[in-house]
């Protein structure tokens, strides 16, 4: 897939303090990348450098400027005395790419009433956050940067956001989300970069189909024997786990999708009690790396 963002050897120093150090990152079309890290790790600075409001000390940032960039800052940056439509009209007029009807459509898409004449200063935090999202996506950017986007959103708002981001990603938008909420990152993102002390410590692929372990529990010892034979026949490693409530259980290390494994096991006549992917545990990975860096999570 084409990359919509490339960050190479990015370093940011303020006086003697290193804010970001040799950061390398890329985002592909339709990919959602999560940025997680403790406070002061450099997440917002990285987003600001990518969007051009903070200058890098060295290194490079590439993205297609003609395709634009959408930004949702952590704190709503709006003109309080104007209504939602006026705010978006002002911002869209800078590039002049879209008209009022598209702005209204975008407002509807994020769940706001385009005909609401209420001044934005009287909006709830959740409504302000939806409006911030609207200004970020209204010009159909190929790259979207979101800094703590779930802040102030109620559970319904978070679900809407998740669905919207998924739609945008399917349409080819590359998205970076900086957040503290590991659960949300895990649910929304394809890949996660753990950042601490200005360095990217590790990138975890959350949607990898390569050797993704599948945990399977079968009904009887007989089923387990058939499972073992099936695994040998298809050259899949099977690791036995402690039985769960007496039910035989194991991990299959395979590239196959869960649906395919289910279909094959059923064809082999194996009675399955439960089956699921065992993805990387983001919280465990994050804590491990945060501790390595001597972070506040130790």
């Amino acid at each position: 897939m084409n990359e919509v963002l490339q960050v190479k050897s990015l370093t940011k120093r303020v006086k003697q303090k290193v804010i970001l150090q040799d950061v390398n990152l890329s985002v592909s079309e339709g990919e959602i990348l999560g940025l997680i890290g403790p406070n002061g790790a450099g997440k917002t600075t990285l987003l600001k450098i990518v969007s051009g409001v903070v200058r890098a000390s060295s290194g490079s940032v590439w993205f297609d400027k003609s395709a634009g960039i959408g930004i949702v800052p952590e704190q709503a940056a709006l003109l309080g005395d104007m209504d939602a439509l006026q705010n978006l009209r002002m911002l869209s007029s800078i590039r002049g790419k879209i008209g009022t009807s598209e702005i209204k459509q975008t407002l509807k898409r994020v769940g706001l009433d385009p005909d609401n004449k209420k001044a934005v200063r009287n909006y709830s935090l959740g409504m302000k956050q939806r409006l911030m999202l609207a200004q970020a996506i209204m010009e159909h950017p190929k790259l979207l940067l979101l800094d703590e986007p779930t802040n102030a959103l109620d559970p319904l708002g978070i679900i809407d956001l998740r669905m919207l981001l998924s739609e945008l990603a399917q349409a080819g938008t590359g998205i970076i989300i900086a957040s503290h909420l590991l659960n949300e990152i895990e649910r929304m993102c394809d890949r996660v970069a753990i950042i601490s002390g200005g360095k990217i410590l590790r990138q975890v692929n959350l949607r990898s189909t390569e050797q993704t372990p599948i945990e399977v529990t079968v009904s009887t010892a007989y089923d387990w024997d058939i499972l073992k034979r099936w695994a040998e026949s298809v050259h899949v490693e099977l690791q036995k786990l402690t039985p769960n409530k007496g039910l035989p259980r194991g991990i299959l290390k395979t590239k196959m999708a869960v649906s395919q494994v289910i279909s094959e096991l059923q064809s082999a006549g194996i009675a399955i009690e439960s089956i699921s992917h065992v993805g990387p545990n983001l919280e465990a990975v994050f804590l491990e790396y945060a501790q390595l860096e001597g972070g506040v999570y130790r």
Partner: protein
Amino acid sequence: MIRLWWNETLRLVWCKRFLAVFPAFALATLLALADLLPLVRAYGVQMNVWDGVFGTMAHWLYFRFIILLVFVFLTADTLVQDISSNWSWLVLPRTNSRMRWWTAKVLSLFSAALVYFIIGFLIVFAISATQLPYAPNFSEYATQGSSFNAGVGTLKFPEGANPFVLSAKMILYSAFSSAVFMMIPVTISIIVRQGYVALLIPFTWIFLSNFWQTNKFIFSIDLIPRLFYGSYFSSFSSRVIDLSTSLVYLALVGIVFYFAGGYMIKRTDF
């Protein structure tokens, strides 16, 4: 660029804070009329609406301590607000040029000042017209000078001067001079990211200038006396400063701060 300029102007004038233009000019007019009307009533001095207009907007006291101070309050922290509210984070990536943004910002000071003085003029004219009769020309009090040292009495306008033309010149000049003056704190605020500093610099300057205006040399180099149009019709200041040198002086200050600001804005982090 024009859209950006329009946006920045709207940002300055389309807000609740800008409503301060109404009480500011109304207060200045009422104070000026409080000086003038007793002369009409007690001594029968013939005055007209233009005495009220120029006695308010061209008078150093009301201009400096009400009209200019309120304009400072309206515009000084424009850049600091953009940065602290993250608005600049939404605007800058859309412009793709920091210099274009800075140019729009500077131009918006001029256009906002023009709006401010046009609205101000209308307020002053309307209030004055309720107390003084309308006339197409300046009154004798305004052109002949007077022993009554109040309002327009401290100034002397050329005989036969058209008050409409002079009003237009006054509005344009006041807008230009005030915007140039405000470029100084706004430029400084690129480095000092505190709204109160951007406010304090012009506030302090305006007050201090009042104390050192008796010194002829300081008066001649100080920017403040050159900001209000009435200076060129005052018996004291017109001997020290004149309109043409002030225009050059203000233009130079504007150019210097435009380029200094542009240099800083290219190198700053938002």
